C-alpha cells in the first residue's frame, strides 16, 4: 500500500507553510467558498469526546476487502464480530465455549463431536442449528480461500444440536478452526453474503461504505454478554491517516506504529498490547548445493554450521533491540511462540553474552587466522547475507542493529533489502528476517517440520530433525490441546535436542513487537489477549469487556 512517511512531512513543515501561504494567495478566490462549509464540518464530523456516549469510532485495521464472509477468511484474526464461533480463547488464551456447550475427540483423534447451545438465534431471528455449522464448514472447504480445511474428510449434523467432524489424519490443531471460523446461516447465505452478513455474533453490520468505513450496531438477538457500546464505526485508514484522525479528535481508538509513539496526542492515552508478533532470523540449515522443493538453489556453508547459529543467537542483545528499534514497545523473543501455552520456558536463555559467543565459535573451530576481524574455518569466512523486505523500516533497523552486534563476535552479516518476490527466490540460500506469530501451534509445525521443507514460506531453511518431527507428530495426534502441549514443548527442547537455541537453533528470534493503540481517555479496553501477528483487528476480540472508566471523568 502506498504509505508515505509522516515524519518526512513533519521535518519540512516550515517549507510547507511557506508554500501554503503562497497557495492561499493564489486561491483567495475560492476561500470564500470554503469557510461556511468548514464550520458545518465541525458540527457533524466530530464524534466528540464525551465519556457517556455508547458509540465508538475506531481506526484499528485494514479493510477486509473481500467482505465479511467467514467462509472465505473474515475473522481469522480477532473475532468475526458478526458471527460467532464454536469455541473461543479468553484473555489467557484458554479455550472456552461459545456456540458449543461441549466437545469431545475420539481415541484415534479422527472424530470430533461438538454439542451446541439451543438458545442461539441469528440476527434475523432464525435459530442456529447444527445444519448451519455443517453448511459453514462445507462451504468454507469448497471456497478455495485461505481457510484450510484440506484435512477435513467430512462434517455431519446427526441432530439439531450435534456436529460431527471426521478428519483424514489426527490434528489437535483442528481446534483453531473451531475458534476462528464464524458460523453463517444456511437460510440467509447467498452470493452477496459478504456484503450483507447475517450472524449470531455480538454485532450486526448496518452499513459498509467501501474503502471508507463499516458501521455496526449491537445485535439484539445476541446470547452472550452485551457490550456497553451500541454502535461502532470502523474507519479504514492508513497508519498515517489514522494518526492524523486521532490528532484531530475524530476517533476513539487508533492503531499506530511505534515510530509515532513518542508524540503526545491530546485526550488520548497510549496502550501497548503484548504480542507474539515476532521478528527473527531464519538460517539455511543445509550446506550450499542443496535444492528447494521448487528447484531453487538452497543451503549456505556458513549458516549451516551450528556454532555460527548459536553464536549469533547468544551475542544478540535483545533488550537493546527493543529499546533502540521499538522505542521500548516490545519484548525479547526467544521462540516463535513466547508466552503461549505451547512454548517451552526452558528454551529461554541468557543473551547479550560476547564471552559465550566467542567460546562457542572457538569450540566450533572458527578462528581469525588472517587477523581481519572476521573468523574463518577451513578457508570459509564467517560471512553471510541477511535479507529483509525492503520498505519495512522496523525490519531494516533490526537487521542493521543485529549485524552490528554480531560483528563483535567476528561474524560479518551483509544486510540487504529485497522485494518479497526476490526474497522468496533467495530465501533458501540466505538468512532472512521474517515475522510470524499465531494463536495456532500449527504454525510451529509448519516452520520446523521436515514435512514442509522448502514449501513456499514454510520451513524455508530446510530444517530437519527426526526427533523434533516425532514430538510434533505426537502433538498433532493428541486428542486435546492440553494433551498436545507437553509434546510441543518437547519439540522445542526435550533436554537433549529440539529447535530451540540449546538444540539446533534454526532461527535466531529477536523481538516481539507490541501493538500500540491510542485510546481516548477514560475508555477501558479490558484485558487483552497476547495478540497474534497482524496489527489491528485482534483488539476487538473482547469488545464485550470494553467500558467507560467512570473514575476518569
Amino acid at each position, binding site marked *: 500500500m502506498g504509505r508515505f512517511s509522516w515524519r518526512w*512531512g513533519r521535518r519540512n513543515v516550515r517549507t*510547507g507553510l511557506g508554500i501554503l501561504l503562497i497557495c492561499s*494567495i493564489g486561491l483567495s478566490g475560492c476561500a470564500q467558498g470554503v469557510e461556511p462549509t468548514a464550520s458545518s464540518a465541525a458540527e457533524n464530523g466530530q464524534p466528540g469526546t464525551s465519556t457517556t456516549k455508547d458509540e465508538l469510532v475506531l481506526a484499528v485495521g485494514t479493510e477486509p476487502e473481500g467482505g465479511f464472509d467467514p467462509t472465505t477468511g473474515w475473522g481469522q484474526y480477532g473475532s468475526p464480530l458478526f458471527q460467532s464461533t464454536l469455541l473461543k480463547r479468553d484473555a489467557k488464551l484458554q479455550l472456552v465455549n461459545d456456540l458449543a456447550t461441549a466437545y469431545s475427540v475420539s481415541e484415534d483423534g479422527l472424530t470430533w463431536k461438538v454439542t451446541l447451545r439451543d438458545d442461539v438465534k441469528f440476527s434475523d431471528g432464525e435459530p442456529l442449528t447444527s445444519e448451519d455449522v455443517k453448511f459453514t464448514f462445507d462451504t468454507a472447504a469448497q471456497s478455495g480461500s485461505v481457510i484450510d480445511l484440506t484435512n477435513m474428510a467430512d462434517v455431519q449434523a446427526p441432530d439439531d444440536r450435534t456436529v460431527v467432524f471426521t478428519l483424514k489424519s489426527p490434528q489437535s490443531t483442528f481446534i483453531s478452526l473451531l475458534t476462528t471460523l464464524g458460523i453463517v446461516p444456511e437460510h440467509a447465505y447467498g452470493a452477496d453474503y459478504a456484503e450483507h452478513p447475517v450472524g449470531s455474533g455480538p454485532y450486526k453490520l448496518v452499513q459498509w461504505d467501501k474503502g471508507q468505513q463499516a458501521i455496526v450496531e449491537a445485535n439484539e438477538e445476541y446470547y452472550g454478554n452485551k457490550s456497553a457500546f451500541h454502535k461502532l464505526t470502523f474507519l479504514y485508514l492508513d497508519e*498515517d491517516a489514522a494518526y492524523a484522525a486521532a490528532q484531530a479528535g*475524530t476517533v476513539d481508538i487508533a492503531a499506530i506504529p511505534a515510530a509515532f509513539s513518542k508524540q503526545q496526542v491530546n485526550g488520548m492515552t497510549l496502550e501497548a498490547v503484548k504480542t507474539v508478533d515476532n521478528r527473527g532470523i531464519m538460517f539455511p540449515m543445509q550446506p550450499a548445493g542443496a535444492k528447494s522443493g521448487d528447484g531453487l538453489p538452497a543451503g549456505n556453508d556458513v549458516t549451516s554450521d551450528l556454532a555460527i547459529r548459536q553464536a549469533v543467537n547468544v551475542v544478540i542483545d535483545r533488550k537493546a533491540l527493543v529499546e533502540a528499534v521499538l522505542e521500548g514497545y516490545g519484548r525479547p523473543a526467544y521462540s516463535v511462540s513466547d508466552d503461549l501455552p505451547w512454548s517451552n520456558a526452558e528454551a529461554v536463555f541468557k543473551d547479550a553474552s560476547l564471552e559465550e559467543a566467542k567460546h562457542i565459535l572457538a569450540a566450533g573451530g572458527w578462528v581469525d587466522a588472517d587477523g581481519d576481524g572476521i573468523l574463518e574455518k577451513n578457508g570459509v569466512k564467517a560471512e553471510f547475507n541477511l535479507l529483509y523486505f525492503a520498505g519495512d523500516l522496523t525490519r531494516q533497523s533490526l537487521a542493521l542493529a543485529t549485524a552490528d552486534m554480531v560483528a563483535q563476535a567476528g561474524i560479518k552479516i551483509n544486510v540487504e533489502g529485497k522485494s518479497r518476490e526476490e526474497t522468496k527466490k533467495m530465501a533458501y540460500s540466505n538468512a532472512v528476517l521474517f515475522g510470524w506469530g499465531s494463536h495456532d501451534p500449527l504454525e510451529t509445525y509448519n516452520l520446523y517440520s521436515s514435512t514442509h521443507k522448502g*514449501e513456499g514460506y514454510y520451513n524455508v531453511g530446510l530444517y530437519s530433525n527426526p526427533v523434533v518431527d516425532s514430538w510434533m507428530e505426537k502433538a498433532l495426534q493428541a486428542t486435546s490441546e492440553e494433551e498436545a502441549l507437553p509434546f510441543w514443548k518437547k519439540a522445542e527442547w526435550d533436554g537433549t535436542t529440539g529447535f530451540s537455541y540449546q538444540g539446533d537453533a534454526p532461527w535466531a528470534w529477536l523481538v516481539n513487537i507490541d501493538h500500540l493503540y491510542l485510546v481516548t481517555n477514560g475508555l477501558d479496553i479490558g484485558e487483552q489477549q497476547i495478540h497474534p501477528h497482524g496489527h489491528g483487528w485482534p483488539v476487538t476480540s473482547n469488545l464485550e469487556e470494553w467500558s467507560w472508566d467512570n473514575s476518569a471523568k
Partner: protein
Amino acid sequence: MTGRNGWARFVGFKMLRLVSLLVGVSVLSFILMQFSPVDPIEAYIGGDMIRVSAEQRSLIEERWGLNESPMERLLTWGQALIQGDLGTSMIYRQPVADIIQERFMNSVTLMAVAWLLSGIFGFALGVVAAMRRDSKLDRLICWYCYTLASTPVFWIALLLLMVFGVWLGWLPVGLGVPAGMSANQVTWGDRVIHMILPALTLSLTGVASIALHTRQKLTDVLESDYILFARARGERGFQLFRRHGFRHVVLPAITLQFASFSELFGGAVLAEQVFSYPGLGQATVQAGLRGDVPLLLGLVMCSAIFVFTGNMLADILYRMIDPRMKEELMS
C-alpha cells in the same frame, strides 16, 4: 467535404482508434502482469501465509483459473469481455464492473472539480503574469508555479491534511462521507466538505503547467506586430487582451487542459491514497500491488477511455472554436 459527413468520418475514425487502443492497452497490461514478480496467490493470501497448505494453494489456483496458461486466461477474459463481462475481482470478490462503477462516481466528481479549478485559475494566473510581465506579481506567480510543479502531489496532500485537518480542525482528515453516519443522512454538503482537501490538492498542482504555458504563449503573442499596431492605436490592458490575445492563448490552454487528463488521473491515485478517499485511484493501487489481474485490466481500460475522451474533446473543441482547424484535422 460536407460538414455532416466530415463529422461522421471524424467520429468513426476516433471510435476505431479507441477500440484498437483498448485492445492494445489491455493485451500489453496483461503481458506486463505476467512478467510482474507479484505472485497473485501470495498477494491474495496476504498475511495469512502460514495457515495455507500446499494443497489449499492449488485449490485457490484452480478457483481463480491461475493454473491455466496465460494465453488461455487472456482468451477467456477477452471472450467474457465481448459479452460485456469484465470478470470478478480477486481481492474484492465482486464483479469488476460494479467496483469501477461505484468508484468512478466518487473519482469523477473529485477530478472534475479539481480540473475546472486548476483550469480556470491556471489560465487566469498565466494571463495576469504575461500581462504584467516582469512585475513583482509576475515573479510571484512564476515562483509559485515552479515550486508547485516540482512538488510531489502526496506531499501537498499531507501538508493540507496537517494544516486544515489536524491543526485547524476545519476539514475532515479523510474518507468521502462523515464517520459513523448512515447513508440516508449523508447530505451533498457532507460530500462536498469531504471532497475539498483532495480536490484542492489536485487543483493546486494542476495550476502550474497551465499557468506557465499560458504565460509563455501570451508573451509571444504580445510581442507580435499586430499587438504593436493595436497598442499604437491606444488599446491597453484587458481590452487589448480580449480583442487580440484571448483567442490565441485559449486554444493551447484548452488542449493542454484536456491533455492533462492522464496527469489528473495519476494525481488522483496519490491524493485518494492520502485522504483515504474511496475512488478509482485507491482501487488501482490495491489491484496493482496485489496482482488482481481482472480488476487492473478493467481499471486500465477505464483510464484509457478517460484519457482518450480528454484528447478527443480537445480535438472537437478545436474544430468548434477555430474553424481553420477543420481542414487540417480531416487531412
